[in-house]
């Protein structure tokens, strides 16, 4: 299958290209950019006039709910959602049932994902067996089975000795450890930011110090152990400042934020809207603005969808009893574009945060359109407005705080390995 994508504005942050270039694809690879290679006859031509052609998006956190929670979402539904959102590579956290703590589970997940022929799935392995926080997993074996990093998802890891050993062990094999900083005891029973909304609504709260004390511990342990640490979904201005200072002092940690936290704050909880019950909690507007600035100045390396499909019954409960999370795969691109437009960030910089930079954190060869690379790419209309309607999302998780919102930027084509994995009707 040979595909020509012509007349599009090609933006490839990694190769520093932002120009009108045609893309030539054959046998799953990009064979030429710009001029046609000798003897190239396309079986299919995609006219990208007025559209942007960019590397397929790389998402650092998407829950697929498999194995174990197929009633909430299946690999099929979520991979369709990924492709509809232009996402061609995604990392999935290990908090499945059972957790991703054995090579067999990881191989099965990789195999299931491969047979669907949609986005590429990069499992994050469990740092401890069963995510129980005591026994280390066979990280090297799991890496060989396909895990790109290890984390504890959102399950508290309360024993710092175990964390210390886990980081040392991972460092032995140069395996990355991904951690979302949150002190479990300071966050105990909390469901919302310890701010004016939780005070008014009487919601049990999670103070910023729950994030920053854990972050301080992780930064010190990272220095001590030499582990490659990536910090997931930071939520507070103070955490961003701490990362900035640590980097200044020579730390090599990376970090990401969830796209929801760029746009929402505690105020959006309104009258107990369970769709704004997220992990970490939505914090103040000041925190939100600091995350936005951090992403622009590259203190924050990447932005992820933090895709969490939740079924309707689990959201139709009082706020504190509702299940946290929001659907995100189909909204990552338009919400990133919205941030860029509002904060005057250039399109190539914005796209870098969801392609090149995310791929660097994952340590995978993706997120660029070099000749010879896998033809994973996304064509989108940056000017097209559309309204978020839960029922029209492909994800089985219809849980979104953005219901009814008009967003700009819609994917028209997604290619994975040179195959059209999604095409807008």
């Amino acid at each position: 299958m040979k595909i020509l994508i012509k007349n599009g504005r090609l933006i490839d942050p990694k190769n520093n290209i932002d120009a009108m270039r045609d893309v030539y694809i054959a046998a799953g690879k990009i064979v030429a950019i710009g001029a046609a290679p000798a003897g190239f006859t396309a079986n299919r031509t995609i006219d990208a006039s007025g559209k942007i052609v960019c590397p397929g998006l790389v998402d650092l956190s998407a829950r697929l709910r498999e194995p174990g929670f197929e009633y909430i979402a299946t690999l099929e539904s979520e991979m369709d959602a990924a492709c509809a959102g232009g996402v061609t590579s995604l990392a999935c956290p290990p908090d499945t049932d059972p957790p991703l703590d054995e090579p067999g589970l990881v191989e099965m997940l990789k195999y299931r994902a491969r047979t669907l022929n949609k986005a590429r799935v990069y499992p994050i392995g469990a740092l401890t067996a069963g995510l129980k926080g005591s026994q280390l997993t066979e990280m090297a074996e799991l890496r060989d089975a396909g895990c790109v990093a290890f984390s504890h998802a959102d399950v508290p890891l309360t024993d710092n000795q175990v964390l210390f050993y886990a980081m040392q062990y991972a460092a032995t094999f140069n395996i990355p450890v991904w951690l979302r900083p949150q002190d479990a005891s300071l966050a105990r029973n909390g469901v919302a930011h310890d701010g004016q909304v939780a005070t008014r609504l009487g919601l049990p709260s999670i103070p910023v110090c729950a994030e920053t004390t854990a972050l301080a511990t992780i930064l010190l342990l990272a220095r001590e152990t030499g582990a490659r640490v990536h910090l997931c979904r930071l939520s507070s201005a103070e955490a961003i400042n701490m990362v900035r200072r640590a980097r200044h002092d020579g730390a090599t940690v990376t970090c990401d934020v969830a796209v929801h936290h760029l746009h929402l704050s505690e105020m959006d909880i309104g009258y107990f809207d369970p769709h704004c019950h997220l992990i970490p909690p939505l914090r103040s507007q000041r925190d939100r603005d600091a995350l936005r600035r951090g992403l622009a100045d590259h203190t924050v390396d990447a932005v992820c969808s933090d895709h969490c499909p939740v079924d309707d019954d689990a959201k139709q409960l009082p706020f504190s009893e509702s299940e946290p999370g929001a659907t995100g795969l189909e909204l990552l691109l338009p919400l990133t574009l919205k941030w860029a437009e509002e904060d005057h960030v250039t399109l190539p910089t914005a796209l870098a945060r969801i392609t090149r930079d995310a791929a660097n954190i994952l340590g995978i060869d993706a997120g660029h359109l070099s000749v010879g690379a896998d033809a994973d790419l996304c064509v989108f209309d940056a000017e097209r407005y559309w309204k978020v309607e839960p029922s029209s999302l492909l994800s089985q998780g219809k849980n979104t705080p953005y219901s009814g919102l008009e967003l700009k930027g819609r994917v028209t084509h997604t290619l994975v390995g040179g195959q059209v994995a999604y095409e807008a009707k």
Partner: protein
Amino acid sequence: MWLNPRNPQLNKNGELHHLLSLEGLPVEILRQILDTANSFVGVTQRDVKKVPLLRGKAVFNIFFEASTRTRTTFEIAAKRLSADVINLAINVSSTSKGESVLDTVANLSAMQADMFIVRHAASGAPHLIAKHVGPDIHVINAGDGRHSHPTQGLLDVFAIRHYKKDFTNLRVAIVGDILHSRVARSQIHALTTLGCPEIRVIGPRTLIPAEIRGLGVHVYHDMREGLKDVDVVSMLRLQNERMKGALLASGQEFYKYYGLNDEKLALAKPDAIVLHPGPMNRGVEIDSSVADGKQSVILPQVSFGIAIRMAVMSIVAGN
């Protein structure tokens, strides 16, 4: 949608449809409730205590959390309005069988309920129920988590108005566990809406929420300083379990620093009144000599509570 999205307790004409919280209620509605309650105080003191305003209506007391006083006063209020009252203590029936709040409510709606009086341990549960009931059903919050207890807040301001006549020159101190108190939040919203110029909250730092100043109150950690020259002292109940955790050292120490006794009360204005939502912990937050003293209005509060609940039920049923 028949409800106002900006304020889900009001209908599209701006009238009270549900009573979920006192936050954001217009002062006219607060005054309407207080004035209506005033007219019911007479009824409750008559020989024949019933009026026919809710005749033929079915009022369901659905209590997902235990309560004696609030449930009883709602029941009395509904009966005095001639309604049929059905009491359900859900904590011991359906939810233990795994039924969700909304399923319980849907089932009761199918039994032709006209009004739900809801108590729940989770903040916001009455909002959730109000969002899902049919347009002819009214929801009244009888206490949700730490969020709101609007009829308690109303009866407290009713008592204050009864004894002090006017709100615009009052200093009110609310003392104790503000963090977990739906009563404190309701009092603060009612008092600020009615024009009370100075509200103080008094308690140890562990029991004062982070952003309480945003509600327009002054924070004191020294009770003697906080009680100085106040017109009203509202004591809050300290739940027994709070004395065991890490928020407080002991009941004795709490009483020493934040309990109300005659000596501390003497720092308030000589004609200051003392409120307590009950049930009281004598010797923990309040001394018996104050609770039973001449400045205490704790028992009149209970009678006013019936009038307030009659007023709220008759007003929402009429809108």
